[in-house]
């Protein structure tokens, strides 16, 4: 058997390809910041991030295409809808034990996806949502974004004759990640963040000290929903469509992969974990083995799985997690 014959260097250095990977990694970083807040700092296991992304993305697109909202108004409206949805789900289910709450969130996300698949009049079903062709010229949900993106590219052309078309989205996504990390790290160090950590450690102890723990858990979930909605927008802009298949539970579990790689209770770990996971997943595309393409595709996931297992064995706290907190946590 021969070794990997070659990395196709041409593809490996393809700027457009890697910009796409970085956009996806950034989207996952945004989603996973919410998970970090929930799982790493509040101790609530949320398996429903894909559902929040879907609610955010679909709300935005439906508001633009069906209700005639401007894109810029639809964004905050969709964020509020998603946060409200999070509170609605959390209100009855956050009283449950952690594992039951996890099941509820997973089921809810699937319900959202299945509704999107079947409520064809509203969501386009399996055709997805992009443009509304009724009337004269088609209206697409990302028209406003395209014009902003084009003007950014126009500006960049002053220095760079042939700019990468994904550059504006890449900048916005990673600026969101950066702002998210700064803001979340700040609130985590405040008395509010301390209450969250106390709930993670022992909810009854926090209640016995006069903390309304349900309220804090709802806030944690609502912020996570907000981040999910933002990621949903970015994904919709990146793919230029909104389709039920893009919000399968696997999205949430990739985000958990990012969380584990980066380490619990570290926001910057989320960004590093996201880049690492997606570099691994996409970079392994270029490994050429003397086997069929389907087998190579499957092998990529096996490689990522092996890396995760190896990391768990050697460094169970992830790259930026604190081992002490992990050992003492139980």
């Amino acid at each position, binding site marked *: 058997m021969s070794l990997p014959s070659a990395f196709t260097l041409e593809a490996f250095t393809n700027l457009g390809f890697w910009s796409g990977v970085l956009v996806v990694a950034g989207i996952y970083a945004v989603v996973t910041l919410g998970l970090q807040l929930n799982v790493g700092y509040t101790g609530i296991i949320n398996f429903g991030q894909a559902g929040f992304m879907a609610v955010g993305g679909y709300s935005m697109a439906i508001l633009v295409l069906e209700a005639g909202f401007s894109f810029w108004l639809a964004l905050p409206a969709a964020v509020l809808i998603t946060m409200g949805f999070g509170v609605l789900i959390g209100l009855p289910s956050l009283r449950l034990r952690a594992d039951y709450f996890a099941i509820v969130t997973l089921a809810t996300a699937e319900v959202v996806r299945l509704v999107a698949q079947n409520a064809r009049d509203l969501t386009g079903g399996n055709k997805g949502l992009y443009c509304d062709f009724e009337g004269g010229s088609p209206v697409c949900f990302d028209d406003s974004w395209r014009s902003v993106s084009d003007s950014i590219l126009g500006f960049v052309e002053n220095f760079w004759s042939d700019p990468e078309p994904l550059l504006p989205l890449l900048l916005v996504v990673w600026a969101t990640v950066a702002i998210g990390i700064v803001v979340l790290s700040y609130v985590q160090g405040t*008395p509010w963040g301390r209450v969250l950590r106390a709930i993670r450690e022992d909810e009854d*102890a926090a209640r*016995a*000290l006069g903390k*309304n723990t349900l309220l804090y858990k709802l806030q944690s979930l609502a912020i996570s929903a907000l981040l999910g909605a933002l990621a949903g927008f970015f994904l919709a802009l990146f793919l230029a469509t909104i389709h039920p298949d893009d919000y399968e539970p696997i999205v949430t579990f990739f985000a958990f992969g990012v969380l584990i790689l980066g380490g619990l209770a570290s926001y910057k770990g989320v960004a590093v974990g996201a880049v690492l996971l997606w570099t691994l997943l996409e970079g392994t595309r270029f490994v050429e083995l003397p086997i069929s393409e389907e087998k190579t595709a499957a092998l990529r996931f096996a490689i990522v799985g092996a890396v995760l297992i190896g990391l768990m064995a050697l460094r169970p706290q992830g790259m930026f997690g604190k081992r002490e907190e992990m050992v003492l946590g139980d």
Partner: protein
Amino acid sequence: MTEATDGEALLEVEGVVKRFGGVRAVDDAGFDVARASITALIGPNGAGKTTLFNVVTGFQRADRGSVRFAGEEVFRSPAYAIARRGMVRTFQITKALAAMPVLDNMMLAAPDQPGERIRNLFLRPAATRRREREVREQAGELLEVFGLEGVAGDHAGTLSGGQRKLLELARALMAEPKLLLLDEPMAGINPTLGKRLLEHMQRLRRERGTTFLFVEHDMEVVMNHSDRVIVMAEGRVIAEGEPLRVRQDPAVVDAYLGGAA
């Protein structure tokens, strides 16, 4: 609503019933706790002491009853609301927040921190910082009183069992309680630390007028350190009074030596 005065009961529990399926864990139990007293709650295993504790502090919903604290009905209020009124409890198995530093454990418990509301983090950062400074200082002083100042920066999970008990008491005090309910504060700690804990209780009662209600199995502690003893058996309060009198009560002797225990 009457304003409670000295000598009046701070806590009045009446007719509490808590069933688990067919079992009446607490069966029409009632008692009073006087202000600035140290009251012990004793009884054989399974008498319903911890369940009653849980009901009084809002951690379990009872089927019936009444709990008045400082003259106000708190029965079925949520646990956090009861704690905020000044009735603070500890647990039989200590609940140190293991992966948090000892100092954070203490600071968490302080009331009236505006920075615990998320909007105040952005609207009132100065008030938040000011309160944090106050609370940090107060926490440092209390840790010193309890001999824990040397471990203030350590994670609470690294403390010994006895130190955790002390931390839990110190933390409860940070919440500025009027009434402290301690569930087996002496269990699992060495006699030296136990003695220190008892001294603290006496001192707090003397200096701050804090009221104590504690569950305890060590009879020597109960007899020597409480003003009043409440005895439970099979979900009911079977005797109540001064330690020496209660000890000689035939119903009590029967419950401990003869009955179902």
